[in-house]
């Protein structure tokens, strides 16, 4: 199932002018789940403009006005979308699918810095990409299904939820099969994969490289140091790196796998196929280590 998501920026008018109920989602996984669950009974829109990361997007006033007018606002939670705490959202029409997952959230140790009168301090948070653990994603889908059943009574939610959960469970099994026994140390180009690692047997140490940009000499030196520290022999990329970068990394003895974080829509395919491709890349990379 793949339908083009409508970017909220293209809205021609408020949600009340539409024929079908409008569901606005703050991230691609939530939009995908909403599409699966609501079917044709609702129009699902992604709040974030194409190519923008939900974690750093700052909406304009017109965006918030349009979001406020939606019949249902779907949030991932876990602190993914900063903007959701920067404007008033109608509580009765907003569902945070991560609610109830508090005990499962993974804390992140963030940078400590010093400036101003406050002195040295750190910014703490939790990892945001909960959907990369498909068991958590399934629970989010269940929470969302209940909200859609209330907001869009015509939607065939029960059957759709059963089908979605079955798809997620099937994929979850492929993830489970990746690693048996001790977690495998892995480096990641970005801090996105905490839940994926926790669920599927990877002990992940994250770098923070710019997507699609070749790392400089300092970053390569840092990578080598992290390889020594962790024993990692595999590097996860969020997007396919430049060819020369891939060659340089291979020369260090690292296997590589491109695993989309799926916070934004994949260029081709959908959430399920994107996740499946990521698992296949990890499987091939692990096999190359044997």
């Amino acid at each position, binding site marked *: 199932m793949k339908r083009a998501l409508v970017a909220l920026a293209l809205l021609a008018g408020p949600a009340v002018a539409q024929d079908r109920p409008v569901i606005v989602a703050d991230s691609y996984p939530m939009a995908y789940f909403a599409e699966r669950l609501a079917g044709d009974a609702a129009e699902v829109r992604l709040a974030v403009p194409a190519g923008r990361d939900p974690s750093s997007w700052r909406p304009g006033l017109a965006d918030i006005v349009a979001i406020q007018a939606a019949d249902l606002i779907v949030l991932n939670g876990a602190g993914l979308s900063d903007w959701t705490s920067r404007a008033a959202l109608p509580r009765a029409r907003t569902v945070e699918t991560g609610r109830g997952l508090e005990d499962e959230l993974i804390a992140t140790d963030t940078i400590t810095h010093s400036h101003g*009168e406050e002195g040295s301090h750190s*910014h703490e*948070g939790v990892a945001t990409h909960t959907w990369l653990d498909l068991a958590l994603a399934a629970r989010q889908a269940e929470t969302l299904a209940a909200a859609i059943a209330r907001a869009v009574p015509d939607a065939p939610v029960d059957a759709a939820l059963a089908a979605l959960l079955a798809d997620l469970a099937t994929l979850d099994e492929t993830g489970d099969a990746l690693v048996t026994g001790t977690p495998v140390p892995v480096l990641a180009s970005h801090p996105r994969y*905490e839940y994926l690692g926790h669920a*599927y047997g990877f002990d992940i140490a994250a770098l923070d490289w710019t997507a699609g940009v070749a790392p400089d000499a300092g970053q390569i030196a840092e990578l080598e140091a992290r390889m020594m520290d962790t024993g990692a022999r595999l590097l996860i990329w969020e997007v396919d790196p430049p060819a020369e970068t891939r060659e340089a990394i291979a020369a260090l003895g690292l296997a590589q796998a491109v695993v989309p974080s799926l916070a934004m829509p994949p260029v081709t395919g959908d959430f399920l196929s994107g996740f499946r491709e990521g698992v296949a890349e990890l499987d091939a990379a692990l096999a190359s280590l044997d």
Partner: protein
Amino acid sequence: MIRGTLALIVALALAGPAMAHRVNVFASVQDGKAGEEVVVEAKFSTGRIPALGEVRVEDAGGAVLATYPLEDGAARFPLDRESAAGGLSITVRTDDDHEGYWLLTPADLDPGS
């Protein structure tokens, strides 16, 4: 599926850009002695109140309407409904270089809406 005890994941950098320099901002319209006022409140996620800072007010088109001092985490200014017709974007920058914002839409400008 491997799901042991939750581990503290140590990232080398920020979990996301939104985590940096976070100050929570809230703004609302209240009736003041001299008429309607926009009341701005700012607080760090730790609960600490920023002592000083600046409040920048922009209209829906991004034009800066005014700036006001932030003192003890608060500021207030008269609501000009004409210039605020499309809503107000209110950005707080504290004197120790943290920034946050609140978006006040036209619906938010009507008390009781």
